[in-house]
């Protein structure tokens, strides 16, 4: 059966729009791209310049301070394994990509989340966009990212940011909205301005929820690294991608396990940051 109405030129119009954008604003995005790639390269080189054992010790120490000795021991063993598998530089590249994507995602997501929590009108605009960002297959972002940001890590991190920001926004909104009504009343009753209410009551009380969102953002960024490898992001995703192309299941698993280890370390540490220390004592 065929439609009587001719096919709407949706694909064509999107292409035309993207072409137009590419020719007119790509000089901005390219400059941005250059800045970010300098940042990423600098950080990767910096971290690789440090001896791996020092970095491993530092991560284990951080894990111990933030999440206790079990996580610290796990991190230590896991990272030593990665080093031994000769995946150290790929791990550092991936970690850097995740870190920078997460920082950008939080820098964008937190203010947007606050705005959407405080204003119903903003929420009505932002929420459908979040749905769109999260459900659109992540591959699709990669295609237009290339003309704007070029092949490589920057395009990957831009696609990653688009894919990974929504949880930070959503959970910031949730965290602020779930502050009990009588605490808001108390803040108002003592004459707080909106800014004082936000910074002294709403945000501090939302921190555990916001951190849960940031944790999700980190995990989503990590899940993008393999996909991003298709446009030359390198890192552990690159190892997996190469193994797929050469049909080397062993190497593929090595890199896959490395991603899992990195994911677990990042997850356990970010889960604990921002949690109320008194809540941990009483076992909540």
């Amino acid at each position, binding site marked *: 059966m065929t439609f009587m109405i001719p096919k709407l030129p949706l694909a064509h119009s999107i292409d035309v729009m993207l072409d137009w954008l590419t020719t007119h604003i790509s000089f901005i995005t390219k400059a941005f791209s250059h800045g970010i790639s300098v940042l990423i390269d600098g950080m990767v080189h910096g971290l690789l310049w440090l001896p791996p054992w020092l970095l491993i010790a530092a991560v284990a120490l951080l894990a111990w301070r933030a999440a206790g000795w079990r996580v610290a021991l796990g991190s230590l063993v896991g990272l030593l394994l990665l080093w031994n598998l000769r995946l150290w530089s790929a791990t550092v590249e991936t970690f850097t990509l995740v870190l920078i994507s997460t920082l950008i995602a939080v820098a964008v997501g937190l203010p947007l989340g606050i705005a959407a929590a405080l204003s119903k009108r903003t929420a009505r605009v932002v929420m459908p966009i979040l749905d769109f960002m999260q459900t659109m297959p992540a591959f699709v972002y990669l295609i237009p990212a290339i003309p704007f940001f070029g092949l490589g890590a920057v395009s990957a991190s831009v696609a990653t940011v688009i894919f990974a920001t929504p949880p930070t926004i959503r959970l910031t909104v949730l965290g602020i909205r779930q502050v009990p009504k009588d*605490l808001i009343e*108390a803040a108002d009753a003592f004459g707080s301005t909106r800014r004082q209410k936000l910074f002294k009551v709403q945000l501090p009380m939302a921190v555990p929820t916001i951190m849960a969102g940031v944790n999700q953002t980190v995990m989503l960024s990590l899940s993008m690294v393999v996909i991003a490898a298709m446009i030359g992001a390198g890192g552990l995703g690159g190892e997996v991608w190469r193994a797929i192309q050469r049909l080397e299941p062993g190497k593929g698993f090595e890199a896959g396990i490395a991603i899992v280890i990195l994911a677990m370390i990042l997850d356990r540490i970010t889960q604990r940051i921002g949690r109320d220390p008194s809540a941990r004592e009483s076992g909540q």
Partner: protein
Amino acid sequence: MQKIRVEHLTKVFGPHPEQALRLLDAGKSNADIRKTGHAVGIADVSFDVEEGELLVIMGLSGSGKSTLLRCLNLLNVPSRGSIFVDGEDVTRHGREQLLDFRRRKISMVFQHFALFPHRSVADNAAYGLEVQGVAPDERRARAVEALELVGLKGWEDARPNQLSGGMQQRVGLARALAVKSDILLMDEAFSALDPLIRRDMQQELASLQRRMKKTIVFITHDLDEALQIGDRIVLMKDGRVVQIGTPEEILNHPADAYVERFVENVDMSRVLTANTVMGRAREVAHPQDGPRTVLRKMTEGSDTSMLVVERDHTLLGSVTLDALDAAVSEGRKDIVALIQRDAPTLDPDTPLTDIINLMAEWPYRLPVVDDQHKLLGVVTRPRVINALAQSRATVAEPAERSANA
């Protein structure tokens, strides 16, 4: 002096308040207005609060008392009417004036404490000062001072969740006291506490009030509490004021059947005091009397003990029948050595509940004395029982009459 004057205050909730106000003016009932998707919080409420007065606003849930209280610091913006505080209409305040009013003039204590869980006890108490922009050292000092006032010295660095309910509400009170505002709004402040702690807090509030002379508007649904602490009571029903008066006026002259029904269930033992139940001490002994004289007075009064007073009515203590008998058989001539000087005495204000407790331990009549220790009267068991029985009868009677009519 008048501190707060509320004039024709009305608050309706809903999408089109003007429409609901028109219906209200047309004399529609709350139920009719609810059908239009609006709710009447309070309707045409007027009253005033004197400086240093503790005014209780009392009513069942849904009577609009919380809405009314939240209008006083504009957490609820009134739909109509005026609130004058120190002669200024606060409903006309702009944003800056309103902040200043809330920061310096009026503070609030909440039913479920509303403490900030992420702040220490001292930082909670200092919150009001912090938003005023008081320097850290000074606000810490003033918060510690306020915490000391409510008996929480030494808990400054604890977290609210480490404290019991009663202690948490003390923090809530300290937070309100620390800003040194003239007016204190208390929203069912003691309702979430268990009964014993509630009574402690009521007494503590009374003693704080004697020292600080704040103007307090206190909300409760508990008439016993209202009668206990209120200088005057505003009784509310369906968003309207039913009666305003002192506890005695409300008990003795209920304005209508609704108030009567309320008053019916009052625990009279907490309302009546020694002053109202005591009788005249007909027979008393004097220290100059001999044992035989006292024994004769006693048989006339058929008692097992007798109060001993000076000529100027200063109470010395009491002598018992057994002690007098022994003295007579030993042939002693005076009773001064026999006087028990540690016998319990009552204030005119001692509530009946406390008297009943005392009577369980002390079998003899209880003397009521003034602050110079002069004997005013005595409270006996029959008088207590009588007073309780009569108070039931007087409040039950009009209720029955209205039921028959």
